[in-house]
Structures are given as structure tokens and as C-alpha cells.
């Protein structure tokens, strides 16, 4: 009896597959054989079949309705109310396409300008960019231009609040890069005077830059130490006499005083 109950449970698990005709040949044969001898499972199987048929019937009925003629009339009226919407405005004319492209380009340039402005120097400092011509030009027409950007207009950066003088660029005459110096507000007057003098040709800006040679290392001369000479020591007990040998080493000679 226990074996029959277990068999019934297995058969009931397969009922949905059997009702959907998705059982394989062997399983279907054993399923049918069990139903032939089990009234309870037969009743349950009929119930499952009815349920599945009702599901199909109900779902089909739910989508069997026809739309009213009002639907088409409304759609046609709405389409008529918005003429020319099948194609977008930008694909209607070559000129409009070109205008759109120009607008996109202008927007891109504005964005780039904004990004450049965002990367400007720290608040509280003044950025001074000194434009120096190439060496060939500087010898013929030495010139010094200066561009001063207001600190108030500049966006704050990570270094804001620090008192660091920053020199960027690896050398004017090597890579023709522009040196950028962050100047503290108190020193701005001096920088303005320097720029003004350069613009009035009172000083030679190109030679001034050449004389700085900030990228070159300092020349350190070898250190020489003069030989030490001690002629006499005024000591009662002993006196020390120092004499230098040929190779410059120092010798200390102790003499006993009489």
C-alpha cells in the first residue's frame, strides 16, 4: 500500500507534463498503465487537463476582442494633426544638417573653453605666462610678452591656499614650452613692473631669460683646503710643531721642552 502511495505521488508530479504531451515514450507508457489501475489519479488527471484547457481558453478569450473603428479614426486624426513628423527636421535639408553640425561644433568649442578655464591656477595666486620666441627669433627681435590672468576669475585648484612658487616647463630654449610662474599676491607689483619694463624695451627680455638658465645645473668647483701650519705652541710642558710633507699630508711633531 505504501508502494502504491509513493507511485501515486510520482504520477501526480508528472501529470502536468502528461497533460501537455511532453512525457517521453517510456514514462508515458508507465503513466498510462498507472492511471488504468488507479481511480484517484485518473480523476486528478482529468482535473489537471480541464485546468490547462481552461487556462488556454481563458487567455485566448482575453485577447479575442476586436478594436473599435474609433481606434483607427483616432490614430489617423492624430497623424493628420502632426504633419511631417515621419522624418525629423534635421534630415529634411542639407542646409539644416550643416547648421546642426555647426551648432554642435560651437557647443564643443564652448565646452573645451570651459574645461580650460576650470584648469586655471589656484585662487590667491596670479598666474603669469611669459611667452618667449624661439632662439632664432629672439636674437633678431628680442621680445617679451606677458599674459596676466586675474586670480579672482581663476577657479580654485588643489593647491589653493599654499604659498608655493611653481615653475613649470622644462626650459624655454629646449622645448619652447611656456614657463608658468605662480606669484603670490604681495609680489604681483614687482612682476607687473618687470613686464612693463620688458614691454617698453627698458630691459632685454630674451637675454634676461637666457641669463637665468633655470634648467641648467649649477657649476660646483672642487674644494681646496690650504695646508695647516702651526709654527709654535706656547705651552710650558710641550710644544707641537706641524710640518707638511711633499704630498700635502700634515705631520705633528712633539718636542719635549727642556
Amino acid at each position: 500500500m505504501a508502494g502504491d502511495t509513493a507511485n501515486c505521488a510520482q504520477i501526480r508530479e508528472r501529470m502536468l507534463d502528461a497533460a501537455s504531451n511532453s512525457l517521453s515514450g517510456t514514462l508515458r507508457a508507465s503513466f498510462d498503465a498507472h492511471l488504468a489501475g488507479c481511480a484517484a489519479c485518473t480523476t486528478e488527471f482529468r482535473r489537471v487537463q480541464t485546468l490547462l484547457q481552461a487556462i488556454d481558453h481563458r487567455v485566448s478569450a482575453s485577447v479575442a476582442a476586436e478594436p473599435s473603428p474609433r481606434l483607427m479614426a483616432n490614430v489617423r486624426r492624430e497623424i493628420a494633426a502632426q504633419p511631417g513628423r515621419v522624418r525629423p527636421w534635421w534630415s529634411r535639408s542639407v542646409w539644416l544638417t550643416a547648421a546642426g553640425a555647426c551648432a554642435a561644433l560651437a557647443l564643443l568649442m564652448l565646452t573645451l573653453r570651459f574645461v580650460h578655464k576650470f584648469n586655471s591656477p589656484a585662487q590667491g595666486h596670479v598666474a603669469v605666462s611669459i611667452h618667449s620666441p624661439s632662439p632664432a627669433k629672439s636674437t633678431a627681435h628680442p621680445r617679451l610678452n606677458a599674459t596676466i590672468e586675474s586670480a579672482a576669475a581663476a577657479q580654485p585648484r588643489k593647491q589653493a591656499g599654499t604659498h608655493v612658487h611653481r615653475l613649470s616647463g622644462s626650459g624655454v630654449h629646449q622645448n619652447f614650452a611656456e614657463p608658468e610662474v605662480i606669484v603670490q599676491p604681495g609680489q604681483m607689483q614687482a612682476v607687473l613692473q618687470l613686464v612693463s619694463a620688458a614691454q617698453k624695451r627698458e630691459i632685454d627680455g630674451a637675454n634676461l631669460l637666457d641669463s637665468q638658465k633655470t634648467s641648467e645645473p649649477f657649476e660646483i668647483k672642487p674644494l681646496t683646503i690650504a695646508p695647516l701650519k702651526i709654527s709654535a705652541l706656547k705651552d710650558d710642558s710641550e710644544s707641537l710643531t706641524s710640518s707638511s710633507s711633499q704630498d700635502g699630508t700634515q705631520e705633528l711633531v712633539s718636542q719635549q721642552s727642556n
Partner: protein
Amino acid sequence: MDAFAASRAESVTDDASLEREFHERLGECATLAFRVALGVLRDCAEAEDVAQESLLRAYRNFHHLRDRGTFRSWLVRIAWRTAIDHRRAQRRRQRHEESAARDGLRQIISAAQNAEELAASCEFERRLNEEVDTLPEKLRIVMIMVAIEGYDTREVAGLLRLPEATVKSRLRLARKRLAERLR
């Protein structure tokens, strides 16, 4: 100016042919869009609203459709998504109704003489609709599309761009899940 005028004339001709083509397809496919929406919403008036919205959306984006042969499939997807969105908005507005006891439905299923009688039961319809709504979308759309008159698994596979075997297995799985929950 000649180039401009030619471009303009060509553009107008293209517009006219696009309009004509869309109107030809509109007659064929309006019922399909309505039935897809009805399968989700189960209300004719709402389904008509959604079908109208879907058709207008299709009209506005018709120029984006490169392969015009896929219009029906494209429209089915638009109608399905629009109906699902509409259903979600509707659900947020409505209060959640408590489902009936499972035992009640079991008695109804046992007492029904045949499938038609059971399908006609209001309680069965209500419970079935609830369970259909809980099916995963990929099972639900197959179930509803196959239920639409005139669409078998092969046609539904073409519309949903799926292999027919996938459509069949999803349909079988959807029916099995519904039956398990309603049993």
C-alpha cells in the same frame, strides 16, 4: 539654389512615400497592437488607448526603422512595452486586492463540468489574471501572443525573433507554472 531645391523636392517625395507606406501598414497591424495591449491590460478601452499611443509612437519613429519587413515585430515590442508601462502606472494607483483563498478555487475547479464552464467562472478568471501577471515577461509575452487568433508558435517565433523551439518550451513552461499555482 538648384541643389537646395532638388534636396527639398527629394525630401518632400521621401516624406510622402514614408507616409503612404506607414498608412498601408497601419491597417494591417492596428488590430495586432490592440490585442497585444489587451493581453496585458484585459480592458478594451485601456487597450485602445495604449494601441493608439503605440501606433503614434511607431509613426513618429518610422524613419528609424531600416528593415521595413520587421514592422510587425517592431510594433509588437512597442505595444508590449507601452502596455507594461501603463499597467505599472495603473498598479501604483490601485490598491492591492487580497487574493481569494486557494481552497475556494480548488472547489470551483473540481465542481466544473468542463473547461468552458471553469473558464467562465469569475473567480477563476480573476485568479488566472493575477497569476499571468506574475509570470516572467519572456513567458508571458509568448503565452499571450500564441493565444492571439491566427498566430501559431512559428509565427510568434518570427515576431519575437526567437527559435520556434524556444517559443514552444516557453509556452509549455508558462502553462505548467500557471497550472501549478491554480491547481
